[in-house]
């Protein structure tokens, strides 16, 4: 009975055959991270994909192992911010947002103001920062839009900002201009809706 239980526990530590693409030392280090993530009930697929990315790119073992370890840690932080019911895709997007400079508080605030899934909102936040928008401007913009905007609206917002930046606008300014110009058709909500863009005269 006990032996069977031990076998069951050992069975949990099974290696994904895709990791065979790594050399043995890297593989066992990555497998250890995967196992810890599994025990912590964090998604393991993103960790495996990161290792496979490193393998394909011929990265040195130390970099691959460092990358998956960091990812596992960040997934834990994301899960703390988003809560245990967060989906794998949301956690991955949250990691991107955190790495882009969003604080866990911003992530938690987003969780409180927008219906799941939060994947697109978090992604847009990260992508705005990748375009050069300062993290706090990007966070403020996404939080402002979060309550009412559909995922497609958020994507359109990001594209509009990126176009403006490509045309020479300073990234932070591009974000607030788009937000204030009511570039999005967000239906007016009942009572106080922090997402409704306000009109402000600009110098």
């Amino acid at each position: 009975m006990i032996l069977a239980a031990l076998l069951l526990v050992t069975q949990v530590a099974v290696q994904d055959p895709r990791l065979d693409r790594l050399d043995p030392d890297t593989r066992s280090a990555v497998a250890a991270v995967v196992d810890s993530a599994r025990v912590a009930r964090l998604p393991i697929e993103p960790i495996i994909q990161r290792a496979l990315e490193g393998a394909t790119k011929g990265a040195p073992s130390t970099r691959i192992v460092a990358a998956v370890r960091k990812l596992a840690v960040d997934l834990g932080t994301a899960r703390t911010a988003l809560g245990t019911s967060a989906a794998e895709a949301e956690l991955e997007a949250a990691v991107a947002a955190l790495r882009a400079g969003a604080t866990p508080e911003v992530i938690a605030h987003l969780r409180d103001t927008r219906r799941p899934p939060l994947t697109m909102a978090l992604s847009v936040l990260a992508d705005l920062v990748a375009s050069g928008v300062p993290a706090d401007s990007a966070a403020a913009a996404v939080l402002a839009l979060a309550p009412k905007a559909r995922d497609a609206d958020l994507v359109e917002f990001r594209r509009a900002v990126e176009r403006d930046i490509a045309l020479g606008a300073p990234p932070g300014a591009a974000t607030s201009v788009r937000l204030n110009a009511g570039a999005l058709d967000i239906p007016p909500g009942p009572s106080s809706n922090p997402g409704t863009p306000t009109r402000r005269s600009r110098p």
Partner: protein
Amino acid sequence: MGIHKVEPSDAELVRRVRAGDTGAYGALVSRYRNRLGRYAVHMIGDREDAEEALQDSFVRAYRSLARCDDPSRFGAWLYGILVNRCRTTGARAARRRRMFVRDAQALDGAAHADRADRLDWTDAVDRALARLAPDYREAFLLKHVEDLEYEEIAELTGAGVSALKMRVKRAREQLQKYLREAEHV
């Protein structure tokens, strides 16, 4: 450049092929290759045989495209061709698989102190799947892996819905049993 959400429908592509645009068939092959391939690999249990069955099915479908009554359901129709093709290959691969399963059972009997550590669950799943009777495996894969409705499976296989439900149930029971056996080595 960049990313576009674009999709000519199956019906549109079939229409083009029928109008003489052979290249349009390539898009259909590309579209269905991996999904149908997944079924073939699990059903047949041998990668090479599966790819041969898949390739064969695509060519057969092209040849008899005129007989696809509802081009918007090209995928389902193609599926039927593949399911039937896998049945004929199954007989050849079954000989090979029985040998494999025999070897696996011989291994199980041997005393390997470190077997618990080397337990490869995915291998156990493949072996368990191979041990199922073909019609159980077929029904199980079509229902649970390929997500077809019982009515659709009935159309493809010619079996009745209640018979199919029984096969799926038996398949689940047997898989559970074989995997338990694999643990208790």
